């Protein structure tokens, strides 16, 4: 009896050690790279570097006041905020619906679906640097095939497609849609292919058309995946910068800046405290919005199980 109790105790301890050692690394990672970094950033947003003493000093709300003043008086933050907010409809109301339709057509094995599969998936496996370079080349003012076609229709903006304030963001949005569909289609395709075949077959026996099948059966059954993609798309409002940096370097004259890009640029210039203040301010605005959207999406559609 004693032997068996001691064995159970020992195996329990071993099990605990195993669980703890497996959890230790992710917990540590979370503590350092999330908790510590975020607390440090928030603290930094109330400080400023003093070049006389070589240390950070507390400045209260000064960094936030300055941001507010910049927002009111200068165009930079306003433009970046508008560009960032526009990412919400572009990713959620253009890219996502197009992705759903594309994934459905691939699922229905429309003619040429194998070629389309490659076309849709290719952007999601290539490096963003390669993708942005190809896109830029397509619209190169002299050699770009895209530019030449558009020129044929009389569209040839002064300064180029990425050098004109009126065209730079639409071009970036087109890139985001082109490159974004592939990623979404990969996830949606997986979700659609898990829908039980008998549900689809039964609907087809009832004579359902493609449109109704998509709207009444497929979309409700893959709703959790759509919710996830919607939330990921919403977070891009506060995190997207690389595409704007690689395609237009934030220009012309700041016309393609986003909030995240402003933060990155401030960090690159060694202006850590203003970057921390800008990041903190928009985190305070962004986190509740994302939680509200998550709750809304969960209420809007049922969490289906099959």
């Amino acid at each position, binding site marked *: 009896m004693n032997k068996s109790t001691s064995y159970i105790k020992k195996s329990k301890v071993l099990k605990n050690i195993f669980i703890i050692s497996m959890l*230790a690394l992710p917990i540590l990672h979370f503590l350092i790279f999330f908790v510590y970094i975020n607390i440090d950033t928030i603290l930094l947003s109330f400080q400023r570097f003093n070049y006389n003493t070589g240390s950070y000093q507390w400045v209260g709300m000064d960094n936030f006041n300055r941001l507010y003043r910049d927002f009111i008086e200068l165009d930079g933050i306003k433009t970046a905020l508008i560009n960032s907010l526009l990412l919400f409809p572009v990713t959620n109301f253009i890219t996502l619906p197009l992705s759903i339709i594309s994934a459905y057509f691939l699922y229905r094995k429309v003619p040429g679906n194998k070629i389309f599969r490659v076309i849709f998936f290719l952007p999601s496996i290539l490096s963003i640097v390669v993708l942005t370079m190809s896109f830029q080349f397509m619209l190169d003012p002299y050699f770009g095939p895209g530019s030449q076609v558009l020129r044929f229709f009389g569209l040839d903006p002064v300064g180029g497609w990425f050098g004109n304030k009126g065209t730079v963001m639409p071009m970036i949005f087109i890139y985001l849609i082109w490159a974004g569909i592939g990623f979404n289609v990969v996830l949606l395709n997986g979700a659609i292919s898990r829908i039980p075949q008998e549900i689809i077959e039964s609907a087809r026996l009832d004579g359902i058309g493609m449109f109704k099948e998509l709207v009444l059966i497929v979309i409700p059954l893959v709703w959790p995946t759509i919710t996830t993609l919607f939330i990921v798309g919403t977070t891009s409002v506060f995190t997207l910068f690389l595409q704007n940096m690689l395609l237009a370097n934030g220009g012309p*004259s700041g016309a393609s800046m986003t909030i995240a890009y402003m933060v990155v640029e401030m960090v690159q210039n060694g202006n850590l405290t203003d970057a921390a203040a800008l990041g903190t301010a928009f985190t305070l605005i962004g986190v509740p919005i994302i939680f509200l959207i998550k709750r809304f999406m969960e209420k809007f559609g049922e969490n289906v199980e099959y």
Partner: protein
Amino acid sequence: MKKVYLTIVITIVSLVLMACDITDSGGQENVLRIDFVEAGLGREWLVQLKEKFEAKNPGVTVKLEGNPNMTANAGPKIENNRDIADIYFLLETNWQRWATAGYLANLDDLYASEVEDGLTMEEKMVDEVIDFGKINGSYYAIPWNDGVTGIVYNAGMFEENNWEVPETFDELLALAETIKEEGRGVKPFTWPGQYSAYWNFVVYNWWAQIEGLDGMKEFYEFGSPEVFKQEGKLKALQAFELLIGDQSNSMNGVNGLIHTNSQMYFINGIAAMIPNGIWIESEMQHVIPEGFKMKMMQTPTLEGAKEPLINNPQLGDFIVVPKHAKNLELAKDFLRMMATDEALMLYTKLTGTPRPFKYDPTQIEGLSEFVLSALEIWKNSKPLYAISKNPMYFANDLNTFPRSGAPYGEIYLGDTTAEEVWQKDYEYVVSRWDEFLKNNNMN
């Protein structure tokens, strides 16, 4: 249960030690590690200097680590004293913060020590850059590259069409018209709109021509908002507006180009001129077509210039030694060696770029026609070193165009005028002056 807690503590501590390696700042005795930005200048210059140094110091090995992003990579290492090199060669960044925060070695003794022929490092440096590496009364950095910037032109095309190299701004304007008339579709200029600050290479020269070097020094001291009312800045911007505000003087789509694209258009003869620097030849060496000839012209002079011959070297790249470098003295020896005439000549020969020291690189044999044309400008011009020691400058509160950055793209597109940029910069600085003083503990 105690055992479980003990296990948790041990696991976390070991993981922390494994992950952070907090006890070791990196480096080995007698292995001099040099981290450097490996970009347009390549690494051959450093390989040859390494060999020279190792031959002079038996038992010492020099280890080189280069990559294009070294400036961004070095910061966290220096600030955390982890895996640090003994010497860093980096591009312009806020090293003043590292120095005042105590991360960098004090180089006062290096500046005062003899390099060769009884000359100290300080004496060997070009006079105007001695203070470049100084902050709060001590030296913490050494300037890396000097430079030559301005307008680079397609010399072959100029010869073929009998186009004269302009000496005055009016001649430059007239040349632009001639190129459009006679150039069979060639445009006068291409430039990288995505990095429009390349126009600083020309506009700053015009500004300094009007204000003189003393005027520019006064500007970069940022003593009061009134420096933003300098007439030279306005005249330089107006000259740019006349030249590039006329959109027909630039190739189509120029405002969306990156620097390598615009350079490709230039070497392929789509445009006759480009604002650029001495580095363009080494940057484009693998794609320059056979027989292509280019040269750099002395920036054409504006009417009323006080100093007609100005070069804007774009000083900013720097060398630092971390305070906790394992081989501090070896690092200083290496930097002393780099300041000898022999090493300076070797550096320029291999990179086509001068360093801000007193030597004559035009005597180097085998330099290209382009590099020689640029070095002639370097030798014959007064250098405009835009060095500011004002904390408002380090803190990014003030710079040349403090309100919204380089205005060239906006002027090209016709969204603003030279006078508007000049006036708004001034008004912006006046309205924020007290805030800047307070931010930097200067009130």
